[in-house]
């Protein structure tokens, strides 16, 4: 009886926090910002690079940069807002509280109502006072678990981070021997176990919000 009422209270609180988050997101119809990207991906060497990020509600997202770079297949910067906005498609409950960056955060679990959905479970660390998502953990059937860690600054009022770290589970990148350019190299001894998570860091600055971005920005070259 007591546990039911407590979980009911937590579920209530979870929705209230998400509602506040959605209110912040609702202020942003579109934005563009400068982005500095840094990659730490197992089996991949890529230098940091700069570009420009574009977003438009509900789910248009693009990073334009000169050169080749990598983003998670399920991009959390596009998907989280869309996921949280559909409040009728999931149940939410608070499983506990943790402190992140000195802020008390509720750990809000999101469970989709439709079992056929790709999402298995979403976990969001939302600050109780002035709600913002500081951390998230999204588990999907196909792509495993994707974690984010957000840091806020001048644009916190609109729920937009200054820095975001995306951590993703990566299967070991298998390089076909016949395609490796250095076949002359004799078998090198393994330098210890390769890590199975990769991190992508995005530093966002100079946001331009609600500038009525054209759809063409998200298509073409």
């Amino acid at each position: 009886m007591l546990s039911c009422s407590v979980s009911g209270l937590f579920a209530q609180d979870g929705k209230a926090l998400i509602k506040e988050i959605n209110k912040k997101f609702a202020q942003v119809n579109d934005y563009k910002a400068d982005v500095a990207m840094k990659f730490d991906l197992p089996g991949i060497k890529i230098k940091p690079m700069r570009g420009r990020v574009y977003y438009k509600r509900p789910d248009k997202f693009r990073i334009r940069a000169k050169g080749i770079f990598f983003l998670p297949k399920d991009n959390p910067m596009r998907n989280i807002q869309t996921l949280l906005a559909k409040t009728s498609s999931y149940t939410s409950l608070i499983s506990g509280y943790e402190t992140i960056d000195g802020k008390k955060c509720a750990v809000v679990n999101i469970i989709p109502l439709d079992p056929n959905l790709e999402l298995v479970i979403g976990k969001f660390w939302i600050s109780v006072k002035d709600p913002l998502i500081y951390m998230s953990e999204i588990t999907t059937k196909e792509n495993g678990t994707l974690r984010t860690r957000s840091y806020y600054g001048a644009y916190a009022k609109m729920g937009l981070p200054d820095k975001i770290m995306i951590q993703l589970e990566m299967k070991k990148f298998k390089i076909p021997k016949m395609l490796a350019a250095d076949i002359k190299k004799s078998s090198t001894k393994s330098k210890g176990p390769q890590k199975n998570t990769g991190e992508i860091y995005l530093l966002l600055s100079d946001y331009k919000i609600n500038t009525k971005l054209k759809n063409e920005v998200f298509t073409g070259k």
Partner: protein
Amino acid sequence: MREFNAILKNEIIKTIKRPRSFIGFVVVAFVCIVLQAAMHSDGGEMIGFVTSSLENTLSIKGKVMNGNLICFILLQTLIIQMPLLVALVTGDLVSGEISTGTVRFLLTRPASRTKIIVAKWIAGIIYTLLLLIWLGVIALFLSRAIFGADDLIYISSEALTVIPADDLNWRFGGAFVIAFLSLSVVASLAHFLSTILENSITPIVSTMAIVIIFTIIGMFDLPSFDVIRPFLFTTHMISWKDMFEDPVNMAGILKSCAILFVHILLLLGGSIYIFNKKDISA
């Protein structure tokens, strides 16, 4: 010196004007254009095969199939075939003249035998250089014109490296210089064998046989081959790829270049010695 220049000029003209010299240029152009056309239509599929294990979790942004990657693939493909094209011309420089008897007319000139053999060697090296420049023009500049220039994805046994487009010109330049040194060893070897043998086909076939045998020895990862592998010129012929490592192992590249250079000096020295001692009576 003027006398040497005249001999050299004559040798260069003779080398370039021979019909077989054009075969190399035609083959390089044909292979490049066929591969470029194939990459234009099916390149995406090939890239997809390589990156498929990555694309489960990551989405690759940017133009992977671009002129720089095509050039790299072309170099990787053609550097294996180029020794044959080089040997086809340089393996006949001396033996061809011995078999036809024209060498006797050549030796009636006041120039020393050393000057004659060195002039022939330089003519062979200039041909090799022209062939590589031709390859560079078609493989790099034509590919960039068709596919555009973007970052290069370099796949080694240890990692997939993305090399920024603006960091590539010096790497390609270095790769072509190493490729030139490598092919110069082949040219010097063919020239050396051409000095020993008096048949015009045998030096060409022998050069290719040596390249193939050394390459096979270099490919097998057997401990017994580890001792000789560092001394085989074929081991260092593919050092041009090291220009695309990050960071570039300059010490290793310079060592390879030094070994290739020593091969060239020894083979040229051998050619001069044998040609000076050779009894040309035919």
